[in-house]
């Protein structure tokens, strides 16, 4: 990402953040109307967690088809970002839940879903740590990502059947429940965070590629020997 895009992203996010506090009216109907502003930050993080999960599954699938190490790197970087955004979404969500429902954790279906996503990401990285050979690590973790994906879809789908939700349903897209001003701010923030996501993704990928190049160079260097020493 070039410098202009980076500056634009920074200004955009700063602008949306200021707007969220100055332009956005307190949300009436919530127990603490002022704190409802956090929704604007919370929801984009939650959405990005799922986006990262999709990206991870997508590259995992392509890795298994093509067996190119770069695809495995992309999958693993997506999982890293997914974990990061899952933590952000959980923390912002818990803060709001404390204000709104009086307790930081309520075993709400969406809370549980995001914790399960975190568990999957954690398991994914534990697995990557437990396989020494790089090709095998890539294969096994891609296979695991593709097994966990349908399971997570099922989980998110069945949770509301089993537990009652505190979250509003379908307000984001139909707009019946969410004030238009909120919707605009929320999606603006999402666009900014998406840009950050892409930027971080490419940055982490470059680091991974450099590390791989260093490893490769170490491997092809001749091993130091004693016979080369002249008496």
């Amino acid at each position, binding site marked *: 990402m070039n410098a202009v895009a980076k500056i634009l992203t920074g200004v955009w996010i700063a602008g949306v953040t200021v707007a969220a506090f100055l332009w956005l009216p307190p949300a009436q109907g919530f127990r603490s109307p002022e704190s409802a502003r956090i929704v604007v930050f919370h929801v984009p993080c939650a959405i990005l967690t799922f986006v990262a999960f999709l990206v991870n599954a997508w590259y995992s699938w392509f890795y298994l088809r093509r*067996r190119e190490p770069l695809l495995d790197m992309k999958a693993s970087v997506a999982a890293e970002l997914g974990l990061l955004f899952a933590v952000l979404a959980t923390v912002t969500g818990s803060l709001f839940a404390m204000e709104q429902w009086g307790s930081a954790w309520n075993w709400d279906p969406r809370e549980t879903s995001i914790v399960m996503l975190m568990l999957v990401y954690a398991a994914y990285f534990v697995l990557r740590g437990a396989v*020494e*050979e*790089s*090709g095998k690590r890539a294969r096994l973790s891609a296979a695991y990502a593709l097994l966990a994906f349908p399971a997570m879809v099922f989980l998110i789908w069945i949770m509301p059947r089993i537990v009652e939700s505190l979250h509003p349903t379908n307000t984001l897209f139909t707009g019946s429940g969410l004030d238009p001003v909120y919707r605009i701010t929320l999606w603006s923030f999402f666009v900014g965070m998406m840009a950050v996501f892409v930027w971080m993704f490419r940055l982490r990928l470059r680091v991974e590629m450099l590390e*791989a190049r260093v*490893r*490769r160079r170490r*491997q*092809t260097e001749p091993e130091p020997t004693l016979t080369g020493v002249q008496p």
Partner: protein
Amino acid sequence: MNWQIELRRVGKEYNERPVLQDISASVTAPGVWTILGPNGSGKSTLLKIIAGLLTPTEGEVVYLHNGERLNAQQRRQVVGMVAPDIALYRPLTAIENLRFFARARGVRVQDGDLLSLLEQVHLRSRAHDPVATFSTGMVQRLKVLTALVHRPPVLLLDEPGSNLDEAGMEFIRHTVRVQAEHGIVIVATNDTRELDYGEPLIQLGA
């Protein structure tokens, strides 16, 4: 019945470290070939790549039958392999091992057939003993028998004579001779006693 195996610029890496690089070769039935090289030179790895047990990182191994390329499923049916790290099921008896591999490969056999097969390698009297009680030589004979139970045209042997006495070596030599009359045998070894099996196909460095 014309069988051919082609190695096209085969390479294998572990952790970005090349174990095998740019190996090309071609063999046509009938005959015996050897892959030579000291321990750690990648003989076993190469043999496993030929068997289809390992996927090469570079290049490919192609099986041709009358010029037609075989897929993975067909390749499994034409290969038999004996190697030190391909074990039999030790809690199962000799005949149970043989029966399982025959059935898994779709060979319809009666127990009588299996017993006469065991007779050929002098294991009939031990047919109902667990493999865990067998000596090295007996295990090796049973391994060869299970590798050939589906009558494959291609036989791959990794260090077939290691830890065998003279009688065991003679059994291996005999097997190789019989198999080489109609099919392909590839032997990976660094044992000087086994060098006379056939012409060197590939010489691997250290």
